């Protein structure tokens, strides 16, 4: 059974959201989902880019002006 986690990175500047996600994914099992909440446009670029390069499934949703949720499903 895959689990779902929320990672609150609101108010955090680069590269803190990316490192937090990397650490979080290391603890998880394949198939688990992390929802990264960010409000830093540069993290909106490098978090999905990094996660896709690692082979994870990524989707981005713009939830409000300047706020995003990045859905990362651990694939490996």
């Amino acid at each position: 059974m895959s689990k779902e986690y929320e990672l609150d990175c609101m108010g955090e500047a680069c590269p803190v959201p990316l490192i937090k996600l990397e650490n979080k994914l290391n603890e998880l099992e394949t198939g688990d989902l992390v929802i990264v909440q960010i409000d830093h446009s540069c993290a909106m670029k490098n978090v999905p880019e990094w996660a896709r390069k690692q082979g994870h499934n990524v989707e981005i949703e713009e939830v409000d002006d300047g706020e995003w949720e990045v859905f990362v499903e651990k694939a490996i």
Partner: protein
Amino acid sequence: MDIKNNEFYKKWFKNSYTYVAGAVLLSIMQIVTLASTGNPWGVSGVFANWGAWIYEAIGGSVDKWYYFSSKGAQATLEAGFMNHAPSMRNIGIIFGALFASFAASQFKIKKIKNKKQIFAAIFGGLMMGYGARIGFGCNIGALYSGIASLSLSGWVFAVFMFLGAIVGSKLLVKYFM
């Protein structure tokens, strides 16, 4: 027509450009800057002038300061803010960035998450400002414009900025994670 779903709007205003597109645009603009003002692009030196003008406005004097002692520096201060092309450019950067975030509908006043962020911002800003002035340039004036002018100093700056960035990253992981 719904502008949010307009392809042209999404391509030009909403989605971020690629790093290559940004690099090419910056290169073209710095050539325009050099050609039109006669000086290479710089950012942080302007703030020293702004500081001097503010200090003079409240009755201070920087005539005797070594940093402003050259004839050129005195003439620039004398001519004032409105005749200072680099100041206009910095104002342009600030309002251009503001316009870009409004146009993409991504403007947001962010909350300060913890006191560490305040300390890091103030301390980091002071260090960068001080370092840029005693180094006669920041990552734009000394690094970017240095390399663009085929100057060896720009490359030396790059090597040591890279070393500094490594130390900075270690500190960041230690105190912000």
